[in-house]
């Protein structure tokens, strides 16, 4: 690379520019672009190897964004709502890959709900992002299934159906990493993303990401103003990667350190009340109460760093299946002879 020596490099020797992608074609101010920036920052900071990342998405404005980050990673813009199956197949082919799945609220909570829940259920390693704007952006603003009751469409129509909460569903399905955030709060989103990179299974991150064109008006519960006013972080999140040792004394009751399997640590600093992300039922209560009171509760909702993953369940060899040589995937001649013998019918 030709960067001047002063350009900072991360632990894998790359500059931040190498985590950027193509130019965005989304509306200026779209929440999704802010998420893209956070992904670039987090991937750079954590030192993700772009050659091992696969960026996968469904269909929607949100699903276009993998073209705008990590230009040195393979990307796959699949079909609407079906990114989870592509992610599963990709990971099955090569368990050393790091899938980042980008989806929208329409892509996940409606057409893709079936595949979403099964990806979570299998615990396929994947950073699964739901860029949640409460509408179908790309098809021009119809309500999605995450729209809140009473939220108003641009034309004034009110949503009457109850919202689907993807975080609650993920927790219910036993997901080991469930977080909610806001595109406008990179300080919270970035450490969450880094923690997700350090997490070996499926991590579900639901990110409120306002659609400036179709859902940023008065009366919408997914607008910038609404999100800012109602955002209630559970904690302040700090991420200490495994290669950094910061031994700061933490006052008991003020903060809590959670260790990730790779040795990185998440430091959760108390804001109002203490929050325990290992308490599944507590997380569900917080989600239900927040919804009833119209609050946007953000932060790391639930974490179980030791959950068994898909690769373990499938009992895969350590190497990628994709590049196993012929002698390891085509059994020898004597095996075929043995099998044929089994189908031979005869008294002789």
């Amino acid at each position, binding site marked *: 690379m030709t960067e001047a020596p002063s350009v900072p490099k991360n632990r894998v020797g790359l500059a931040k520019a190498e985590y950027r992608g193509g130019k965005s074609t989304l509306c200026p101010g779209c929440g999704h672009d802010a998420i893209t920036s956070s992904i670039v920052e987090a991937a750079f900071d954590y030192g993700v190897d772009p050659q091992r990342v696969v960026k996968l998405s469904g269909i929607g404005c949100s699903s276009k964004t993998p073209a705008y980050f990590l230009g040195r990673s393979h990307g796959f813009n699949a079909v609407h709502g079906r990114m989870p199956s592509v992610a599963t*197949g990709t990971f099955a082919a090569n368990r050393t890959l790091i899938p980042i799945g980008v989806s929208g609220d329409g892509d996940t909570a409606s057409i893709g709900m079936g595949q979403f829940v099964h990806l979570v259920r299998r615990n396929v390693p994947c950073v699964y992002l739901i860029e949640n704007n409460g509408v179908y952006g790309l098809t021009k603003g119809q309500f999605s299934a995450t729209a809140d009751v009473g939220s108003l469409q641009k034309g004034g129509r009110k949503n009457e159906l109850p919202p689907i909460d993807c975080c609650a569903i993920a927790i219910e399905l036993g997901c080991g990493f469930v977080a909610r955030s806001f595109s406008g709060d990179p300080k919270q989103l970035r450490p969450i993303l880094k923690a997700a990179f350090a997490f070996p299974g499926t991590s579900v991150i639901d990110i409120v990401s306002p659609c400036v064109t179709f859902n940023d008006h008065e009366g919408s519960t997914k607008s910038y103003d609404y999100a800012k006013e109602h955002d209630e972080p559970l904690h302040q999140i700090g991420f200490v990667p495994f290669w950094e040792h910061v031994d700061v004394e933490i006052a008991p009751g003020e903060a809590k350190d959670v260790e990730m399997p790779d040795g990185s640590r998440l430091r959760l600093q108390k804001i109002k009340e203490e929050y325990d992300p290992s308490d599944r039922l507590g997380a569900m209560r917080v989600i239900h109460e927040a919804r009833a009171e119209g609050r946007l509760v953000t932060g790391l909702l639930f974490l179980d760093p030791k959950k068994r993953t898909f690769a373990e369940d499938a009992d895969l060899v350590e190497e990628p299946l994709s590049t196993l040589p012929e002698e390891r995937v085509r059994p020898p001649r004597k095996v075929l002879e043995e099998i044929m013998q089994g189908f031979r019918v005869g008294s002789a």
Partner: protein
Amino acid sequence: MGYPAVLASLSGPGSSPLPPHVKPLVNDFSLQVATVNGSGSQTANSVLLRAIFQMGIPVSGKNLFPSNIAGLPTWYTIRLSKDGWIARKRGHELLVAMNPETAADDAAAMGPGGVLVWNDAIPRPSVPEDRIVYGVPFAKIVEPIVPDAKLRRLVVNMVYVGVVASLLSIEMKEVEAAIQGMLGRKKKALEMNLAAARAGFEWAAANLGKRDGLRVERMNKTAGKILIDGNAAAAIGSMFGGVTVVTWYPITPSSSLVESLIGFLEKYRRDPATGKNTFCVVQAEDELAAVGMVLGAGWAGARSLTSTSGPGISLMSEFAGLGYFAELPGVIWDIQRIGPSTGLPTRTSQGDVGKLATLSHGDTRHVVLFPSSVRDCFEYGMLALDLAERLQIPVFVASDLDLGMNQWMSDPFPYPEKPIDRGKVLSAEQLARLPKFERYRDVDGDGICWRTIPGTPHPAAAYFTRGSGHNEAAQYTERPEDYVRLVDRLAKKYETAKTLVPKPDVEIRRGSEIGLLAYGTTHWAIVEAREELRREGIDPSTFLLRALPFTPELASYVAAHDRVYVVEQNRDGQMADLVRLEVGAEAGKIRSIRHYDGLPIDARSVVEGVLAAEREGVAVR
């Protein structure tokens, strides 16, 4: 008296002279067993099939079963053909009637000289005088052998095996060997079933005077051969083809393909050093997910397959298009059956071919292979994986229930001599030597571009995959000329596919005006029909179509004949239509013969179809 003593004391069936209207039929008839689904007759029927096969006689067995776990009628037909015909034969000469519900109809379906072995616990079906009826007290025979009444219901089936063996002179030592082969490991069941078969044999030998003309005589036409179903053959082929990712959603008649594949993989594809799997099988949440996983895996460099049937194919439609445009390898087996889930889902059909040809939206065209034999299933198990990676497309293999789930004779499958073909994949080392990598640049002029797989450790390896809105460098574009260039290249790739798919098997009869054309299991009916047609003074050529796209042999074949009968197992002549489109100006030569009642097609239907059309001299559509 033990059964060897019975054998010695009898001069064998046929000891009493046959009445004049009863013609002897040796090794050339069908027998049908009519039972109730879930009554455990499967093993008994397989024993009969195997015993005859072991006597060296060409056989084929067809299971006709309902969409039900227990209680509905089911039939099993075994055809013996000294000449080696393996298509279904219309009608049967011997009926074992165990099911009161269908006995009357089944018996009525037999012609003069037909033999009825009737369970005397059910009402006696009335049949004309010239049918031969043997009443058998199955309950009485099985009772002393099996004390447990529940078990008796299952074991009673082995009694008819013994009775039929006695009547037809099927050697008891082969029956016993077959039982041993199937139940060898279950000692108690083995003993009981052996005893039941012997009891049936002895009872028949002692009590039934042979009055019919059906007989089995030892031949030597099956030595060294195997009996196998197409789904197991496909599974074996796929394993030797190096499949690494397998996904599925259960559906009859395709489930047994993946189920046997799982069995083979678990036995033969665990890493010897670590015991870990060199494969990954995922039971998906539905067929949309199954095919999404296959294409994701193919994109990431695995050799991947899924197996389904018509309803699943419908669900895979959107992904099939993405796979075509985004150039993603993957193999999709379609074990065809009739219609919707509440159609006749356990009956065979070739009703998906029209849809498979262009499955999905937009200008898609797929490569479809048509196995006609278990050997093809084995070969295409490997070939489909090679073609998918070579051509970077989803490849369909259109089998059917008849081939997939029934037992077919075959020579043992030979070990593949050609190495696995991984297609055009660039490694990091190759990338390092290239001035630049563009995913969709047709550098070789065959429409197939070089790809990289995710995880390739080189900074230039990455590219972005999306449907058709991209240029050669995989950059986003919506320019009309870029799109046209892309789809025209895909069309060129389809031309290349013509040089890679298996060629048809063509037998030209010099001077014949008539050609027959079939694909898949229909082939066996047309080769047999040809012999019958010869007797009628018609000597047609035959064409076994093995794949889409059509290869140039098709046009030559149509050009060389005045009339080409496309024979297939669907109502609308789906392949006939595809052939008409292909041959353009010669489309008028194409006639269509269809068989679509859910039973495997028989030669007679082909002969009648051809004769009727020839007589009328008009195209039948």
